[in-house]
């Protein structure tokens, strides 16, 4: 049997009020894309991984349409900061702050996330 590379058994975890919540194996996250996860309180979160391996997590609901689709948007870098563009009407959200880059008055919740 060969030893699996280090990262294979890393888990993606989110900081919730009562501790770290395990979402999935890290290898399920494709760099540049997101996945959605269901939280114990029925909220939905979108988790992303960028090409450098950094993780981000924001609410999965698109505040402009209400649909739970932010995890399916395209990600990118805008002036050095990571963002995701909603696949529905294309508004972009900063992945670190949750701030909508196209409408100052809109922000989505962010979560602390780690691979452990």
């Amino acid at each position, binding site marked *: 049997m060969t030893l699996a590379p280090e990262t294979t058994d890393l888990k993606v975890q989110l900081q919730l009020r009562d501790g770290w919540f*395990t*979402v*999935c194996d890290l290898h*399920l996250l*494709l*760099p*540049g*894309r997101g*996945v*959605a*996860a*269901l939280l114990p309180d*029925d909220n*939905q979160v979108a*988790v992303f991984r*960028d*090409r450098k391996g950094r993780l981000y997590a924001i609410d999965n*609901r698109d*505040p*402009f*349409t*209400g*649909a*739970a*689709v932010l995890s*399916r*948007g*395209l*990600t*990118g*870098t*805008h*002036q*050095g900061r*990571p*963002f995701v*563009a909603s*696949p*529905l*009407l*294309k*508004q*972009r959200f900063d992945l670190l702050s949750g701030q909508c880059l*196209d*409408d100052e*008055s*809109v922000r989505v919740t962010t979560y602390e996330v780690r691979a452990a």
Partner: protein
Amino acid sequence: MTATPTIVLVGHGMVGQRFLEALAERGLTATHRVVVLCEEPRPAYDRVALTSYFSGKTPEDLSMTDMEFIKGHGIELYVGDPAVSVDREARTVTARSGQVFDYDILVLATGSYPFVPPVPNKDATGCFVYRTIEDLLAIEEYAKTKATTGAVVGGGLLGLEAAGALKGLGVETHIVEFAPRLMPVQVDEGGGAALLRTIEGMGLSVHTGVGTQEIVTDADGAVTGMKLSDGSELATDMVVFSAGVRPRDQLARDCGLTVGERGGITVDEQCRTVSDPHVFAIGECAQAADGRVYGLVAPGYEQAETAAATIAADEASFVGADLSTKLKLLGVDVASFGDAHGTAEDCLDVVYSDSRSGLYKKLVIGRDGTLLGGILVGDAEAYGTLKAFTGSVPPVSPESLVLPAGAGESAQLGPTALPDDAIICSCNNVRKGTIRGAVTEHKCTTVPEVKKCTKAGTTCGSCVKVLGQLVTAELEASGVEVDKGLCGCFGQTREELYEIVLALRITSYQDLLDRYGREGARGGDGCEVCKPTVASIIASLAPAIGANGYVLDGEQASLQDTNDHFLANLQKNGSYSVVPRIPGGEIAPEKLIVIGEIARDFGLYTKITGGQRIDMFGARVEQLPLIWARLVDAGFESGHAYGKSLRTVKSCVGQTWCRYGVQDSVRMAIDLELRYRGLRSPHKLKSAVSGCARECAEAQSKDFGVIATSNGWNLYVAGNGGATPRHADLLAQDLSDAELIRLIDRFLMFYIRTADRLERTSTWLERIPGGLDHVRDVVVHDSLGICEELERLMAAHVAHYRDEWSETINDPEKLARFVSFVNAPDTPDPVVGFIPERDQIKPDLPLLSIGTRPTENTADVLEGTAQR
């Protein structure tokens, strides 16, 4: 008196809101207490765009009030609480709620009310006016439940809008206008006639030269008709009065302020009432210093700025405004500007009129050649430039300005020819010089930035096109090289990137970004513009550059738009639609049954599409693989309804059955669809084949369309349906099957190579230098010597085509992505739900609501990311 001085604003309409913004800009909200009494149940909204409610805008979309702004500036806004009296002695305003406010300055912005002629039964059930969102809600409700016929009293600007709205609600619509023509204020007889023809052509009935004498009602007091002045009676279930507006000056009258003879609170050039230095009046309720009451928003905005400046002790005055208007009424462009009716002495008209197409254009020219004004009906393209030239002698002859494009002499004046003091945005009174200044001094480089900086283009939007041309011209003139790069990540155009990928056989996006991206973008994650663009280039060239042609392979999966990523079309509630390919629209009964069974078993909504195939809506992401397993099993392939790639090749039944057909159009359509299926391109590609010149397949509206002749096939290219339809151009005639296919191969590959992202063949052909002649030279006469390569690239695509869905359902790792939740693969997304409608399903929209929707319209700034 209070310590901080108080400004009380009565009326929170469009002008009132602009006044508040002007106060804030001048810092007056910090030094004053500001109280706003708003009569309507909602804060200020865009009344000019009121009618767009019927095309899907919600009251929230129409809002002009940012509550953050109100809160941030400490403005006290009392919604639904109108002022009922003013005591000028005591300087107090009393609101309906009983609250009393002291004021140091009172600003009246109470707007207008719709004038209802005093005819018997004018208040009957079924009679409406057209001014507020509440009016529209009431009209909609009545039209949907109680009316099949409606009449609008008044054929002016608002009357036509109201009529358009009624027609849109499915009501048979009549317009009754007292004057002998429609829009008597704005257009002359000729213009009215052109308008009449077009509007009647849309199925509305117009009665001009007759007045309304009485509303006829039934026993319950509901409208059943109206008696007209010519003795006739018009049966109708509802009446909308739109016979002009009157200033709302009652509050002012009651407290003894002077009003004009025909109404309107009399003010001086600073918008201060002539009777009381503590009271101002602005907007439609005011009679300006020039004796006029303005019923348009632009002069009102100018008055709002003037009043705010005066309060701040700055110099400003409002002495009168231009009444130029440009509107789209019932889809018809109508514009009038300057001295439209030719009242100046000795002036002459230049008129172009074409009743067949509802065109009417008139310019009023002074003796010395000065452009004084004009009227445009049916095509108001030139409005922006012509209006700006008003008052000067245009650099080209007037007749060339009204002739339609392509009619030999016609000339198009670019906005660069305009003088600096020409007004570009009349809603916000922004001059060309200011826009240039925004670029040169304030360093704006894009239209959204210029809009923010100057307010130009933020109201009716009719000037945005000219704005764009000016910004580009200014950037180019000031030596700034206009950045034609794809996005903030790449300085190259799509065409340049295509050449790089092909020449260097680059198969990885990251590789391309790190080597050829802009300085700051290298090593980053790209953006939502360049990722799918590069993915598309790699997919189009896959066999030639040695990439895997499967769009979900490796890195490619992370570049695709969400639709391509899930090989289905995302719908508004997060579910997907599924469209199997039905080549040429031909389908055997067995396959139809399979589609029916699948749709039934998964509970999908089915619809025949405009592309001669069947769309199944409402699939949850985790159902997609199950649905496709069955479709693939029955011999279906992906229809690429999601991709920027070949959609459908429509066919007519053709020679086999049709008595007129001269070729087998169905077979050709199937051959073409199978040949080009899966071909990724800058935008979607559509085609059609008709069996004879009757053109039942509408081939001339397609990117490439084929029409049979008795000698073979005619090939048309660069047609388009959609928002800007374009008839295709004939590229070559009487081709054999093989010649036809060879030309299409070359044409498509040349387009894929040279077009911009999201540029349909129609816009591409219009853009590229040399246009159709150049394309014909390249693809028919091989003037660039690249045809062999184009053909080879296409041959490689055809040889390597594989169906994406059958590849996907055989790949467990890819299939694992088709879940709603990575940590709960069996749980469906709770926000995706459906309710019944007409024996099928539709999205359950209330499930989607999460608090209030943001109000700002950001649609025009969303394209692309980053610094350009």
